[in-house]
């Protein structure tokens, strides 16, 4: 155990910091849940890619730096420290990308990864359906084989950023006879094909951050299948593992948020309120604990101890911590917390968004079930 950075890691940190300081936009970009904001974020991703910072942990041949996970965490720390924009292609770079590297063919890697790294193609995730959310294995959208094509029919919902995204990765029922988890296939699909209708859905903050996607006899070539036919559930679970595990919510995001919270407390907090000071300290410890836990997980991964169902613990921890950070911030802010626009709007916005954390990427109730069943080995429920 040595929790100090190596010289190599410090040099990497410095390189990232220097680049970010020179390149991060001075003014925050408009929300990527607006047309203009989406376009501006795509440009930013291109800039990151040109500096080879968009997917640092990917192999160099696909636009990454082949950085190990420790360096990736360091990069993330610098990224949030610099106040750099949100990642508009996160579903691609952090979820689908690693999945393609794990199960994709060489041709698929060549075809999809570089344009993903550059965000020439921004990806949306088309899994949930109106009647299949937590019970994802109950999806009904179908893919029927016709020669060298799949014919897609059905409806997906809650697909983040799909309003402006270029492609989506979905799971479809390919064997109508098979039960639930069996008979599903993971398919990659452009969103501008004939037969596709994307209908924006306004989120709690009023922006159209997700969408419904309707498939009406949409034809995609079978070579767009990721992994084996009828084995899509396993592929999807690998993706979900990345999502719940370390890659979607890197600790830096929360370390940065608690640092802002401490600054907010210093500026506006009632210093005679010891309960408030305790609450701020509590979430500071949580963010620090999450950071340490992640470094431990990642070291384990590097040493050949991959993360399993424990990823569900992370998902609960970060999502509940994020809500708590924002609850405390709004308590400090007081009456200003009622305003959607104003000098402290970022906290109000952040609060609304934090409330979705316990829901997306598998609700926290589902995560608790997973932990109980797979980590604690309790008997399956009904």
């Amino acid at each position, binding site marked *: 155990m040595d929790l100090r950075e190596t010289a190599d890691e410090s040099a990497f940190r410095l390189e990232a910091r220097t680049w970010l300081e020179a390149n991060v936009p001075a003014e925050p970009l408009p929300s990527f849940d607006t047309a203009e904001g989406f376009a501006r974020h795509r440009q930013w991703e291109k800039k990151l890619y040109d500096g080879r910072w968009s997917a640092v942990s990917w192999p160099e041949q696909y636009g990454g730096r082949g950085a190990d996970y420790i360096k990736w965490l360091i990069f993330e720390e610098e990224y949030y420290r610099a106040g750099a924009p949100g990642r508009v292609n996160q579903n691609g770079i952090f979820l689908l990308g690693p999945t393609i590297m794990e199960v994709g063919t060489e041709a698929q890697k060549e075809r999809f990864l570089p344009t993903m790294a550059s965000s020439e193609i921004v990806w949306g995730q088309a899994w949930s359906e109106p009647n299949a959310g937590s019970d994802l294995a109950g999806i009904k959208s179908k893919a029927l084989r016709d020669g060298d094509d799949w014919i897609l029919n059905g409806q997906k919902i809650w697909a983040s950023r799909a309003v402006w995204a270029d492609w989506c990765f979905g799971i479809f029922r390919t064997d109508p006879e098979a039960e639930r988890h069996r008979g599903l296939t993971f398919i990659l699909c452009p969103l501008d094909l004939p037969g596709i209708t994307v209908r924006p859905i306004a989120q709690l903050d009023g922006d159209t951050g997700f969408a419904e996607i309707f498939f009406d006899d949409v034809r995609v070539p079978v070579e767009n299948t990721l992994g084996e036919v009828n084995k899509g559930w396993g592929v999807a679970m690998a993706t979900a593992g990345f999502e719940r595990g370390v890659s979607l919510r890197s600790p830096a995001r929360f370390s940065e948020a608690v640092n802002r919270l401490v600054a907010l407390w210093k500026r506006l907090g009632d210093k005679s309120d010891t309960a408030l000071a305790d609450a*701020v300290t509590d979430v500071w410890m949580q963010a620090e604990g999450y950071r340490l836990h992640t470094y431990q997980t990642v070291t384990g991964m590097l040493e050949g101890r991959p993360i399993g169902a424990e990823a569900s613990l992370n998902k609960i921890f970060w999502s509940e911590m994020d809500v708590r950070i924002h609850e405390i911030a709004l308590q400090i802010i007081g009456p200003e917390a009622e305003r959607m626009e104003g000098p402290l709007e970022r906290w109000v916005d952040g609060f609304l968004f934090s409330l979705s954390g316990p829901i997306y990427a598998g609700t926290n109730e589902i995560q608790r079930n997973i932990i109980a069943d797979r980590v604690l080995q309790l*008997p399956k*429920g009904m």
Partner: protein
Amino acid sequence: MKFSFTDDQRLFAEGLRELLANECPPTLVRDVWENGTGHSPELWAHLSGMGVLSMLAPEADGGMGGSFVDAILLFQELGRAAVPGPVLEHMAVAVPALASTTFGASLIAGDSIATLWVDDSPYVAHAGVADLILRDDHVLESFQSTDAHGMDGGRRLFTVSGGDRTDATPNVAGLDPFDAMALASAAYLIGLSERMIEIAAEYARVREQFGKPIGSFQAVKHLMSDALLKVEFAKAPTYRAAFSASIGADTMVRDISMAKALASEAAYRTSRSTMQVHGGIGYTWEADLQLFMKKSWALMRSYGDANFHRRRVSGFVLA
């Protein structure tokens, strides 16, 4: 940056786990509760023989020459077995602090037993079995101890009077004894919590109601998952605190406080949840769970409770 234990460290901890599975089963813990000693000389001899007690003493003095990183998993294993007696006080403070004094040799060998009297505490844990007591500026021998009826029969409390003093200023690698104990207790509390979860999970698999194992009920699953969550997220901070202590980092006091605050809260939450999962049997003297719960209630309040340590972290973070 490397946040993991070496194979040697892991193997040593596994060895200790095995030893304790054989030599410190709940029946032994219960025996020392019930015979009123709160200590097992046979177990003590095993711990000494394995080198556990002398882990933090320099090799030159006949110890194992380990650091807090070498010791932290051992504290955790001791907690998993609710090892009774002054093992933490002896191992984490007395041995390293007094290794090079005249008391050193017999402490390192485990022939004499030491405990700790924290500054303003009215009670001294384990005084009844200790040969010497370490205080902030002296060592006490030949003292009188009177039972103060502690809740945990494996950590008996006493009031102490009289005794012969020898000057000494204990210091454990730059930490004062209180902080060394806070760190050791944090790891011990994590071990206790892990064991409570194991016991309750096993019970939830076998106890049936409504024709099903109670572990299949979601309310039970979620109680258990939430306890595990707190325990798992107290671990990395505790290991980090051990690392900080081992290199004398500027942040070591803050880091120890963070660990003790989180581990104390995790242990309390775990004790509540695991007792609830047991139903009526959880409220009995017979259930082994109490051996672990009561130890956790004693230790979460000792060497600074969660509030004390949280405020100390505040002092660093909000300053």
